[in-house]
């Protein structure tokens, strides 16, 4: 036997509220149809359709609402014997059942929260990764970067030189001079870097950032390799061709091989041997974070191109360190006129790492907070409207003896449910979008430091969950208080006449105004943020970079039997470049002009 007409059954289900009573009614109709169908199928169908059309749906819905409210209140009262938990659990259960019946509201509320929490989580993960998470060194707060200062540049007329007077690099002999005098620093060292072609195995050559270290560089940082060892004093002194790989270099160029220690590879024009691999996350505050570390080459030791790196003695401040280092430099200047006007300045190492983007990162943090704030207001507004829609049910609850607390709980339960689902969804969204987001940010803000540290770790999770909790609680506050203030008699009397009470409407108006104001603030902040990033993008690099193209040559050493052949080839490139119609002049600086200018201008041959 076939059942009742499908369309009629579907219509019946669509019109009936979801409840046991409706199920029973549907069953009664099914049974009535089955009985009639044994006599005449046509009549049975006709009867079923008529039944579907004559049911008093509005009254049924009202009754079901009242029954639900009563069940909740009774259960909440029963639950109160063993504490509030039973009541809260029941409120949550009711919320879980009632929210899907308002799919549009539930979807808007959950989406609002998910998007806000997702966006705030993304923004905060950048703030946390770049600014807040500790640097991958021992006691990173004690680390300072030391620059040389040039009085001559500060006092000169050249604006570009004046701007860079206190961020100058220095030669290793200066570091030796500091090391010789006891003071408020525990250790001082230096490093410089160079872009060199690396050739490992049969892979193509690749230009990598080679950090050249002095003795004590790793000791000052307080780090140990994950694999192998660090260069010893003799190796540094003799500039031995040994290298420590960054974790990423090890996996990218050496396939993460466990037996990498002892392997040889080409670097520039020399052959180096791997002696160690640094742990995951270890990097240097350079453009690319360093691809590998080698002892400073003999020929670069005298270059004034080293960054000073020092560890403060316990209890010493940055000011004390600056005073000390500056005094030592100036004492040498007093004895030797060629060194007159040279001073020193120490800055917190983290500031050196994130210095340029710090303002932007702070703005990013402000934006994250604003997004959360706007989410609070949006969600609060949504729930205020929702509570106005639930007045009838709340009035029934009140008339059945529900106290102000349990009314507020009934409202709170829905908010908590939306909060949990929306918050988790937001975190999931952030997790999915993190990779592309960091990539896009890295592309927009050249040299955004510590991109690898941007991830959804514990502090970010704490922020996201905290933001969700705060949003939920703030959003629940106004409607829950409103619900608790309901006067039962007047509420029931007014329910069908006025959908929204004056107080609720006032509350909504206030929230709408706040929402509008916050949106303006958020948009202004977002524009400022964008503007600030643009400023970083277009920062004055001290030369006219328009119409300059950089050509990096990666020489495959196997193709050139000796240095002379390579030089010949370079000459060939040079003469061909001269003949290109668009090229007016060219030069071959080394390293290539990227990053901040700290050295005197390059000379073009």
């Amino acid at each position, binding site marked *: 036997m076939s*059942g*009742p007409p499908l369309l009629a059954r579907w219509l019946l289900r669509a019109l009936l509220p979801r409840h*046991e*009573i409706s*199920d*029973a*009614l*549907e*069953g*009664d*109709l*099914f*049974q*009535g149809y*089955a009985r009639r169908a044994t006599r005449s199928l046509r009549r049975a169908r006709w009867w079923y359709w008529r*039944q579907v059309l*004559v*049911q*008093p*749906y509005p*009254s*049924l819905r009202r*009754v079901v609402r*009242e*029954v639900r409210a*009563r069940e909740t209140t009774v259960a909440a009262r029963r639950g109160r014997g063993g504490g509030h938990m039973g009541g809260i659990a029941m409120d949550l259960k009711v919320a879980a059942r009632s929210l899907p019946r308002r799919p549009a509201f539930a979807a808007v509320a959950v989406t609002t929260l998910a998007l806000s929490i997702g966006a705030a989580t993304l923004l905060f993960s950048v703030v946390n990764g770049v600014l807040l998470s500790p640097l991958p060194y021992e006691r990173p707060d004690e680390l300072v970067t030391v620059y040389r200062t040039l009085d001559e540049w500060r006092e000169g007329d050249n604006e570009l030189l004046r701007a860079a007077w206190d961020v100058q690099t220095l030669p290793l002999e200066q570091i030796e001079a500091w090391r010789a005098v006891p003071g408020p620093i525990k250790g001082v060292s230096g490093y410089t870097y160079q872009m060199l072609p690396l050739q490992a195995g049969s892979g193509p050559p690749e230009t990598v950032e080679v950090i050249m270290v002095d003795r004590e560089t790793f000791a000052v940082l307080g780090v140990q390799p994950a694999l192998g060892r660090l260069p010893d004093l003799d190796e540094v002194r003799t500039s031995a061709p040994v290298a420590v790989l960054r974790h990423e270099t090890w996996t990218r160029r050496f396939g993460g091989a466990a037996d990498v220690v002892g392997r040889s590879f080409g670097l520039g024009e020399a052959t180096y041997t791997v002696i160690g691999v640094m742990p995951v996350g270890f990097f240097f505050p350079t453009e690319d974070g360093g691809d590998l570390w080698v002892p400073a080459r003999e020929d670069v030791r005298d270059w004034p191109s080293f960054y000073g790196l020092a560890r403060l003695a316990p209890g010493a401040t940055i000011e004390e360190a600056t005073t000390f280092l500056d005094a030592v430099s100036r004492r040498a200047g007093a004895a030797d006129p060629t060194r007159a006007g040279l001073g020193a300045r120490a800055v917190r190492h983290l500031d050196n790492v994130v210095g340029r983007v710090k303002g932007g990162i702070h703005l990013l943090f402000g934006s994250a907070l604003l997004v959360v704030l706007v989410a609070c207001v949006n969600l609060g507004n949504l729930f205020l409207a929702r509570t106005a829609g639930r007045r009838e049910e709340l009035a029934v609850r009140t008339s059945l003896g529900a106290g102000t607390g349990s009314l507020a709980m009934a409202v709170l339960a829905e908010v908590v449910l939306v909060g949990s689902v929306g918050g988790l969804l937001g975190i999931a969204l952030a997790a999915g979008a993190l990779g592309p987001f960091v990539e896009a940010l890295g592309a927009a803000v050249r040299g955004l430091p510590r991109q690898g540290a941007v991830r959804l770790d514990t502090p970010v999770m704490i922020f996201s969950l905290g933001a969700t909790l705060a949003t939920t609680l703030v959003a629940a506050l106004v409607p829950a208080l409103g619900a608790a203030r309901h006067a039962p008699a007047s509420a029931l009397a007014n329910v069908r006449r006025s959908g929204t009470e004056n107080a609720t409407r006032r509350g909504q108006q206030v929230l709408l105004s706040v929402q509008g104001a916050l949106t303006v603030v958020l948009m202004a902040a977002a524009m400022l943020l964008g503007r600030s990033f643009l400023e970083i993008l277009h920062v004055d690099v001290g030369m006219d970079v328009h119409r300059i193209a950089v050509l990096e040559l990666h020489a495959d050493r196997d193709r050139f039997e000796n240095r002379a052949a390579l030089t010949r080839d370079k000459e060939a490139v040079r003469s061909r470049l001269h003949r290109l119609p668009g090229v007016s002049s060219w030069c071959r600086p080394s390293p290539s002009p990227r990053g901040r200018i700290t050295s005197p201008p390059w000379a073009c041959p």
Partner: protein
Amino acid sequence: MERQRLTDLEQLLLLAVLQAGDDAHAGAVQTVLDERGERKASLGSLYVTLTRLEERGLVRSIKGEPTAERGGKAKRLYEVTREGLVALHHSRRVLDRMWEGVADATAEA
């Protein structure tokens, strides 16, 4: 205990529940109401009234087992409570009192 007043439909409904006996679900109640009470009512309105009566403690209901002949839906079985019986008897006494002396004068033609 305060006696509860019953409307005409409520009285008929309580009586129909009593008549339907052990299988007093809305469908059976509707049949009794139709055949003996000369009252046609939709199942929906029966559920509305029965639910109101239940709120007032005059009937109670339990959920039966879902069966295939009902399309997998459970029955809701109703039973008149003691308060329901008291209210029914009271309504009947009121009606009886009202009829006393009137019956002869208005004997059915």
